[in-house]
């Protein structure tokens, strides 16, 4: 497995999450269905193989461990990411976050505000609940990739 392959597998998974799972999540009636969807959508992201999880990729600030890999396409000015977490709910939330920012230009990513974006999608409760889960730490790490 290489970063290129992971990026290639992550991209369509994120499009599907954005187009299909996100609307389903916002319309889910009870908390059980919401969490089932969250966990399924986390599963759609290809896992980063153990061998590739270098300590430098570890995102601190989470109860559970999470990892982030980054690739910047200079010609097209686009940031692409691959991420993984050992906790499934966290991975689901991170997948949603990534589906919003993957492929953004440097300027777009710099301007992106997670709280606003989650609010627009009626996902804000998830953001406040998961303050300790490292979602904000992951977002900060993604933003650190900007130049």
């Amino acid at each position: 497995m290489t970063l290129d392959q992971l990026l290639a597998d992550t991209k369509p998974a994120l499009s599907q999450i954005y187009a299909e799972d996100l609307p389903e999540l916002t319309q889910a009636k009870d908390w059980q269905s919401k969490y089932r969807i969250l966990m399924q959508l986390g599963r759609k992201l290809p896992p980063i193989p153990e061998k590739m999880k270098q300590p430098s990729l570890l995102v601190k600030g989470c109860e559970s461990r999470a990892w982030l890999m980054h690739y910047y396409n200079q010609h097209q000015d686009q940031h692409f990411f691959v991420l993984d977490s050992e906790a499934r709910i966290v991975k689901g939330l991170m997948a949603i976050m990534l589906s919003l920012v993957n492929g953004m230009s440097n300027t777009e990513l710099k301007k992106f505000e997670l709280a606003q974006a989650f609010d627009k999608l009626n996902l804000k409760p998830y953001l406040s609940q998961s303050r300790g889960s490292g979602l904000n730490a992951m977002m900060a790490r993604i933003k650190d990739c900007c130049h």
Partner: protein
Amino acid sequence: MHSFDPVNFRGQFAFFQHNPGWVYLDNAATMHKPNVVVDAMAMFYQRHNSNVHRGAHTLSQHATRAFEQARDDIAAFINASAREQIIFCSGATAALNQIAFGLMHTVLKAGDRVLITALEHHANIVPWQIHCSKYGVILDIVPLTADYKVDQQAFTELLALKPKVVSFSHISNVLGHIQPVTQMVSQAKAAGALTVIDGAQGIVHDKVDVQSLDPDFYVWSGHKLYGPTGIGVLYGKTAALELLTPLFGGGEMISEVNFSHSLFNILPFRLEAGTPDIAGAIGLAAACNWLQSINNEQMKSYKSMLLKQFFAGLNKIDGLDILSSPVHNAGIVALNVQGEHPADVAELLNQQTVAVRGGQHCAMPFFSLLGLAGAVRFSFAPYNTEADVATSLHALTQAVEILTA
């Protein structure tokens, strides 16, 4: 002494009236405060607030009297032989840092050994690491048995290396296992070591008599014993406290200061630099006095009845790895849903308003020994109810269903 009545007991906590939907099983992290504690602190601030030991005016004398009365009450609570053996600090962490630092210059020299166990909270590991590595002191760790208890055979063997200090927890904060402290203290003493007990969980469960248990130091945090946050107790035998170099310098702890050197004050002030947490000490003493008025044996047997019900319920849920033993357990159950991360389990319980802790509980070395990401910890208190047990079991069943669907 009053007999323990669960309904009356729970009724003394305003928290539960304000949060009727919640099942609170994170008591090992912090406990709720009975109204007597909150009232005592409010009373101090509203009527008696002044700084202590600066008795130029009568108000300060009143505050000093109340603060020193708190020291007396706490000394009586653990049956300390003298009031100056109670040192107020911010909690067990601060106390252990003071002890580790304070013994380095006086007792521990390069090549000496300190012995702790593999079951310790970070607060009883990291201070020793920091100071031992700085002064060339060797830190030994007692390993665990297969059922996660401190290996007493290995403990005896490591004592043969003649450690100068032995430091261990009374009750494990992760698993709830009660250590054979009386035996460990007497063995360590026979080996010529100073003994330090981290009583953060222990004092909540058992009535502690420091004269009969006889350690050199026993430390605990107020907030885990129905008291406020920010206050804790470093108990030490007078001779042991005299060995401690103060970690903090400042006001109160000196008798004379000039620019070339200072003379330290007597105990307990020598180890209490700066303005103390006056209201905190008064709140903690109120908690101790209140607890002492309730039959502890009845309270313990009520808690163990809840624990028994909880364990019985767990046995009916498939797919759990239970780390805690029901035997010699102070009311803490650590478990995992097989193949699932504890953070996920804890979040699904949170969705059902069951408050537990999921993670490593400040005991990373223990979990790396086990090769686990952590555990979900349910910790019970005497204000919990049989309904809490039933609700948490139902919530856990739901969580398992969602995770394994």
